[in-house]
């Protein structure tokens, strides 16, 4: 286990170094910078822009900027935003917290939805209701997230008025409401973006779960449990379900990078102030420190999550721990 961990850790570090270096270079290669300003209006003079560039260190050679960035990042300092001069760590810290809340809720809903529907489909392959559910979920999986998001807003927020159109909370409630009202308000705002993520991700989990349950239903000890008179529900939950955990975790692991990408779109559409919104805003503004910092945070997030998933799979599935036969 120790050598496995060491190998995976080295792999994680290598991935991060490559991602951060490539990201840093690409951001700097893009034309324009934060001082270019809005071309539809007269901006600051070229002297003033040059002064700001020098203050931000953008007039230095790229290699110098890179070394300074890496040195700072290793000390937990990602610099200051070029647009509002706030520490990048503070900006991204707040955004990350919001993103994790959304992705966590979406993931939880996706796993619940996917496991329930997938299990039901696999256990009752002849059930028309569950087949219908499964097909509906697969159809939603094929729909781009922004389309799904707009459709949900149109039907459930604009049409029915059940949920807010966007945002993370109602600013007035967040200022004047009681603690309970504030929590309820955030949960109400969380429903549609989390549902958008869950409908897409849930389909992937459901497909995996359906196949795993269908396979486990044929395993001897499950058949024995049924033959002994155990109820269908007990046979499913106590005997078949535990054998499917590892494959589902593997699917969730594969989904992690897609979750980050998907969250960007969902966050923008629902005005959820997470990493996605920050990154889109920073890219548009050519706010190099924020974009570079976001690359560090996102690659760290994806790499460590992947590492964690590998460890969990290894722990959950005994077959993963069996030593491979040698050729000697």
């Amino acid at each position: 286990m120790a050598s496995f961990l060491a190998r995976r850790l080295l792999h994680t570090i290598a991935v991060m170094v490559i991602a951060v270096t490539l990201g840093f270079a690409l951001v700097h290669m893009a034309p324009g910078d934060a001082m270019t300003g809005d071309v539809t209006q007269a901006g600051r003079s070229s002297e003033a822009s040059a002064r700001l560039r020098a203050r931000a260190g953008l007039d230095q050679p790229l290699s110098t900027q890179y070394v300074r960035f890496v040195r700072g990042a290793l000390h937990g300092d990602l610099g200051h935003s070029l647009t509002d001069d706030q520490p990048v760590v503070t900006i991204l810290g707040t955004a990350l917290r919001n993103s994790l809340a959304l992705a966590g809720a979406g993931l939880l809903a996706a796993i619940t939805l996917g496991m329930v529907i997938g299990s039901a489909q696999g256990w009752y392959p002849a059930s028309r209701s569950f087949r219908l559910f499964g097909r509906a979920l697969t159809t939603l999986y094929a729909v781009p997230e922004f389309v799904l998001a707009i459709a949900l807003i149109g039907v459930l927020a604009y049409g029915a008025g059940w949920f807010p159109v966007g945002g993370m909370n109602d600013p007035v409630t967040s200022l004047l409401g009681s603690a309970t009202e504030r929590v309820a308000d955030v949960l109400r705002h969380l429903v549609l973006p989390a549902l958008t993520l869950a409908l897409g991700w849930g389909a992937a989990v459901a497909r995996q779960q359906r196949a795993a349950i269908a396979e486990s239903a044929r395993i001897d000890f499950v058949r024995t449990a049924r033959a002994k008179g155990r109820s269908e529900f007990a046979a499913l939950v106590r005997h078949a379900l535990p054998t499917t955990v590892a494959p589902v975790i593997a699917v969730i692991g594969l989904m992690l990078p897609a979750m980050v990408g998907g969250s960007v779109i969902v966050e923008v559409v629902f005005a959820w102030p997470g990493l996605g919104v920050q990154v889109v805003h920073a890219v548009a503004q050519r706010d190099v420190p924020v974009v570079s910092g976001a690359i560090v945070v996102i690659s760290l997030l994806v790499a460590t999550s992947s590492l964690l998933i590998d460890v969990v799979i290894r722990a959950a599935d005994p077959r993963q721990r069996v030593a491979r036969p040698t050729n000697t």
Partner: protein
Amino acid sequence: MRFSPHKACSAALSACLLLLGCSRPDAAEPRSPRASVLTISTAVDADALIPPLVGTTQGKQAVDLLFDFLAEARTPISTSGDAGFRPQLATRWQWAPDSLSIAFSIDPRARWHDGAPVRAGDVRFSFALFTDPVVASMHASNFVGIDSVSVRDSLTAVVWWHKRHPEQFFQIAYNLAVMPEHLLGKVPRDSLLRSSFADHPIGSGRYRFTKWTRQHDLMFEADTGNYRGAPGASRIVWVVAADPTAASLSVLAGQADVLEFLRGDAFAQARKSPTVRAVEYPSLDYAYMLFNYQRTVSGTRGLFNDHALRVAISQTINRGAVVANALDSLGRVALGPFTRATESVDTTMRQIAFDTATAARALDSLGWKLDPADGFRHRAGRTLHFKLMVPASSATRQRVAVLLQSQLKAAGIQVDVDAVESQVFGARLAKGDFDVALNIWRTDPSPSTIRQVWATAHGNDVEANFGRYSNPAFDAAVDSAAVTFDPTARRALYRRAYQSIVDDAAAVWLFETRNFAAINARVTPVGMRADAWWAALPSWQLSEAGAP
């Protein structure tokens, strides 16, 4: 008990319906406590709340409510003299006999939101802050020509100019947001945004700062004891919704009260909605097809320096059809490098008419002969061909570009639409790296600022004259207008300048936008100016019916 899939499905559906049913709003619910809160849906967050550092319209909206100006512009705005202004922070003002200085008397009742009195020293300090090179404000150029601000006594600030000009009063009263010296005076000027003031600004306006969650919301509350009186709405909240569809839906669904620009389908929906009104207000934005006068195009250096060619291209384009197709009722054909809301504009001025036959003859006479084989015009083995650069972020301009491409193709001119990301568009425009660009410009209320975009550039600093256009007759007329005090003569000079640049076909003047804001029916807006629709926001009235 056996597990039944059908029963499980029914139970799950019933639970969902019950849950959704419970959350449905009930008309009999008690009145919303937010009835006097005005919520503005905005696509972009404010960038800063310290006036010299504000670069976005949203930031400007916020600081205009938070801070006071020496005087307040009337609607419509007039930039010549002081007749177009009424007192704000200054109760009165007195011109020096030589007109080289104006003494402003500060309202003794004016207080900062922390309770400290506003003093003449704050005016001097604010001017210093705007013009300090260390601050590098993008608004510093607004104060060019002002020598200094002195303090005669604690309530009298005197502004001094190097020389007289008609817009002296406008220059200082319109641009100088007055900031508190006692709070900002000791903050290092190169790190204003890192100060606590940047996060909790204190002004003297009719709204005071409450909270700011970046990229999410910004909230102000009424300064009920303000020396100018309490405003109409108890709070103003800007809610950021970067996605335009979601932003318009939030207003249409009644979750926000105001959206400053309606576009496309949202405009049609707003016009049909019983709870939302599409309110038009004047616009200062015009779109134009900008020629690059220094570029080698179709093998000819400075191809667009040829006046006859520019006129022929203009005649080839049916601007009315372009506007009708791309903007429908949300745009008008532009008259020139200004809009109908610009001071001194003459809407009856002579235009280059759509006339394909004359254009074809002109192109033939210039040597650009139509080759029936490929349908394009050629001269000395070169095709009359250019790239039309548009920002990919603007669906409207991309639609316009395709229409232009089609119309120009019919005349034998080959156009490639070059859609680029908005920052790339800006960078290439500034560098002069384009053949022809489809740009939009927001004019300043001062007609003299037309020089930034169209006056002959000297040296490398082209300001916003990205195509390096030069027209001495235009320059002379605008320069004369800018220093003419007599309103009639000044207007005549500006009209001469406008006619000169239109006759010269400096660009193809495509359209000016028609601004429609979506405003909830419970809100009664007043004084929506072309330069600042939000200028009279404190006077907007809200009724409780239909509150979110």
